[in-house]
């Protein structure tokens, strides 16, 4: 802690900004943005069994992931004050036929685990 304070004080005296957020010559910018891990499992409301092939996506964002054979999904996305996660059955009758569902997440402060049950059509 003391070391960090001294570092900032001496760095600040040189009157330059971004002293601590550097990038290597041939490297990328540093990643300082807050993000969030959204993971969970999608099951059938009636049978309780996991559903494969459900498209899990974030509204207003091109990110999505398909649930695996255990109905599981897991992805990082930008931390916003609120997020709407969409669950869509897009493979027609394959793996069953389910209603879409939206889940609204608010007051996000850390990673989220979602247990989702979809109703059969």
């Amino acid at each position, binding site marked *: 802690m003391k*070391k*960090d304070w*001294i*570092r900032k004080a*001496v*760095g600040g*005296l*040189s*009157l*330059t*900004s*971004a*002293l*601590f*957020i*550097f*990038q*290597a*010559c*041939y*490297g*990328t*910018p*540093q*990643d*300082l*943005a807050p*993000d969030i*891990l959204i993971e969970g499992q999608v099951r059938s409301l009636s049978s309780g069994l996991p559903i494969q092939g459900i498209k899990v996506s974030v509204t207003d964002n*091109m*990110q*999505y*992931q398909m649930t695996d054979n255990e109905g599981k999904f*897991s*992805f*990082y*996305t*930008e931390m916003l004050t609120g997020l709407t996660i969409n669950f869509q059955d897009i493979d027609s009758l394959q793996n069953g036929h389910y209603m879409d569902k939206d889940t609204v997440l608010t007051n996000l402060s850390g990673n989220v685990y979602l247990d989702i049950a979809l109703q059969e059509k």
Partner: protein
Amino acid sequence: MLSTLKKYSFRKFRDSEIKNHELNYLFWECTTRCNLNCLHCGSDCSKDSLHNDMPVEDFLMAIDTIKKIPKNFTVVFTGGEPLLRKDIEYCGKELRKRGFRWSMVTNGHLYDKERHISLLNAGMGALTISLDGLIESHNWLRNNSHSFDKLMNAIELAASSSRLNFDIVTCVNQKNINELDKIRELLISKNVKAWRLFTIIPIGRAASNDNLLLTDDQFLELMEFINQHRKTKEIDIKFSCEGYVGRYESKVRDTSFFCRAGINIGSILIDGSISACPNIDRSFVQGNIYKDNFFKVWENKFHPFRNRIWTKTGKCELCDSYKDCNGNGFHNWHGEKKNVLVCHKEKIENSICKNVI
């Protein structure tokens, strides 16, 4: 007076950074395979690499020697072309599980919508893509007639993501020095927010191609271009941290020159070698993850990086800027290391148009 105080404080700051040598930035040379055959490649990469890709588990074994993650720590996947590996996302997720952030440098050739989404899903937070000119000059340097078109698609995808901290890098050379204004306009039209400009140093394949190296006058022109356009706000333009640029120091970058190789920047190279930036002469390797504890090597070795007095030789020996430059970028010391490969300050001073600013 203010300038002297600023310089003095910065030297003290640099000394304290060297003493602390906190690892903030780790390159992983995850492959030396490449889908392009660029004229300027510093690492002589090719489609058929002599080395196998390093298994993710081997890299994670080295990473796991870091017991306390420093603040602002980033793992940067580099190559070769990282996107040739199918397990980048798996590795990225494993890093995130351990609390590390990660990012990637790519030529953009394989960066399509599907890969963009899977990389974001795996927690990638920053990205650098290379653009080396308008269509003709870019494809010339990249040695591939489709590179520019594929790259434009990659840039549009990356720029569309508010999650990614994303920038474009351009290696300025004889073929594109006169296109900088148009490249700038192109990047602004693609909603790119940050652009870093490099010169090519004469190593790897670039060592034998004079078309790639800027004359002293052209280098000054580049400094002037950056200086002029940093005053506008449409896009953040800067010169890379490749070298000390004398009187342009405060005009072309956010901070004064400070080569952090081996001070805050480390690397794990394709064969397990432990070093700093991947373009540094391999004779500076400090250990190997297959026989050494990575973090112990980082903590206890790296002496030539942290005490650079040995660079006070050749043209650096009597240079009055040595205290601020410290031997220029570490990647400028190759072979017998009797002289610095490129002195950026000298290029500016040798230019015919000395009195631009």
